[in-house]
């Protein structure tokens, strides 16, 4: 298996006046292709910061981050935008769909930013929506969809550009248990099809779906366990 994320000694420091706050205090993680990883930790542990850095939304204060062979920590804003566009698919707790646009357009959006022609965009977006079981809801706006359907649209959007990793931040946090389970089985399916998935959560129930659980506390990795069954 090939290495997709190689993080070594990453630190993220926030200066609060005189005091320095170490959100991440030297983290090393290596994630390989087709892994299904859950990052766990209580709030304030640094798991969100780690996720933002992995997702190239944020840059570390120090340390090295190599994503799919590319050194990310020296990239400028525009290069990071391109990495987010091509290498990463985000799924958020609050779905983060554009409310005024229909499902198809929401899924099309990353393709617009990568400069695809309209015909190709629509074709790929339709395929992606069909993949998550929403072929018949393409023209609906987010407020015309249920919570589970909205999250499926978000997953379709995350998948549409064939990213190296899917980053899901508490993807079931705003869903009821049953719908949450549906979304989790969708992730399991995607993982089986070869996608690399990184899940950030604080719920043991949800984390159990992953094959590897990394626990973070006070900016440091507390434990990193790979499930025996999947090994």
């Amino acid at each position, binding site marked *: 298996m090939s290495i997709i994320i190689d993080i070594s000694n990453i630190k993220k420091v926030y200066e609060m006046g005189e005091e320095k706050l170490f959100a991440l205090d030297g983290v090393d993680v290596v994630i390989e292709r087709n892994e299904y990883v859950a990052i766990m930790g209580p709030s304030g542990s640094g798991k969100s910061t780690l996720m*933002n850095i992995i*997702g190239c*939304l*944020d840059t570390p204060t120090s340390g090295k981050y190599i994503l799919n062979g590319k050194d990310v920590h020296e990239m400028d*804003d*525009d290069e990071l*935008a*391109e990495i*987010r*566009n*091509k290498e990463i698919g*985000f799924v*958020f707790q609050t779905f*983060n*769909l*554009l409310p*005024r*646009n229909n499902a198809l357009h929401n899924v099309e*959006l*990353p393709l*617009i*930013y*990568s*400069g695809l022609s309209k015909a190709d965009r629509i074709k790929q977006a339709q395929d992606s929506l069909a993949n998550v079981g929403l072929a018949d809801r393409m023209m609906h706006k987010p407020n015309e969809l249920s919570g589970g359907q909205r999250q499926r649209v978000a997953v379709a*959007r995350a998948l549409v*550009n064939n990213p190296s990793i899917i980053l899901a931040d508490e993807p079931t946090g705003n869903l009821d248990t049953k719908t949450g389970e549906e979304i989790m089985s969708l992730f399991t399916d995607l993982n089986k099809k070869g996608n690399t998935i990184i899940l950030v959560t604080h719920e043991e129930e949800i984390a159990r779906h992953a094959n590897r659980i990394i626990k973070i506390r006070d900016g440091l990795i507390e434990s990193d366990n790979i499930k025996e069954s999947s090994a």
Partner: protein
Amino acid sequence: MNIFVEIKESLIIAINAIRGNKMRSFLAALGIVIGITAVTLMQTAIEGINRAFESSIASVGADVLYVQKFEWFGNEDYEVYRNRKDLTLKHYEFLKRFSQTSSSISPSAGTGRMVQYGSLNLEGVFVIGTTDEYQKTVSLNIDDGRFMTAKEVENAYPVCMIGMDVKNGLFSNINPIGKIIKVGSYSFRIIGIIEKQGSMLGLFSLDSRVIIPITTFYKYFGTRRSLSINIKAADLNNLEETKEEVRSIMRKARKVPPGARDDFGINEQAAFKDTYNQLTALIKVIGLLITGLSLIVGSVGIANIMFVSVKERTREIGIRKAIGARRRTILIQFLIESSVICLGGGMVGMMISFPISLIIDAFVLPTAMPLWVVVLGLLISLFFGVLSGFFPAYNAAKLDPVDSLRYE
């Protein structure tokens, strides 16, 4: 991503955002609507005034020089002009004999008199004494009858040509040709009617006139008036040459020593234009500044709305950035939004001012909205769109994706 695709996509986003906030976008654009309406109407008004001026001074004739004691718009003291020697028929004859670059020359003297026919009378009619060449010199057209002949001038016949105001004032239903009218206390026979001339700068009518032979004029009204000697240049393009020739002939005729200044004025239409331009330049600039100010106010309004819009859509910007929008993409998106609002406002402004310009043209003064004003108006609204959108858009572009995704 290709810049054209980017602009096209941004345009779609902008139009959707404007549609989604119709009332707010309308209020934002209102300032630009008012500004563009004001600027274009101001230009239309200026155009109208210019046209009125052009048609007014057409009667002066672009190719005619007026040699007179006074200079139009001269800046010497009145005393200097008054103390100059009068221009007489002797000077006229001198010019007539020596000038080679002119096509016709005629002297004219004028005075105001009451004109009577039967029980009707007109006060303050301008009586001009001149020669048969006057018609050609100042390009008069005859509406009815004929102009006087050289013989009538030579023999001081009591004949006259009347202007339209005199005709309408004294002869409502009868043909004036051949009728006898009293000019002052002397009788004249009407031989011609001059076509309507209009008025000079809207101040005095050029049709309240009676033209008589200069010899008759001298006989009845005296010779103590300084003449105006009117010279039509043979070629408008060589007007300067004619002017120089006239100057040297006049200096000889009036025995002006070398080095001394002319003791006469050579007037021409250009003097009117220069003075007009000087007088109106300031008014035009001030007019444009004031109307331009309303555009700036409108632009501030749009900048204000755009700041609000960026704030409101912080989360949207975060989402767009998370899925790969670059700074430039966000910048362009908001710049285009404000440009569309401004351009829309500008177009609405034009749609308001264009019909108004037609109304002005029909009822107030002949004018038209110049095409360049339309083009310029749209460019200005686009400019203000970019200007007022820039800072809000720049703010949006540099938003931190993590913070903006967290924004509630």
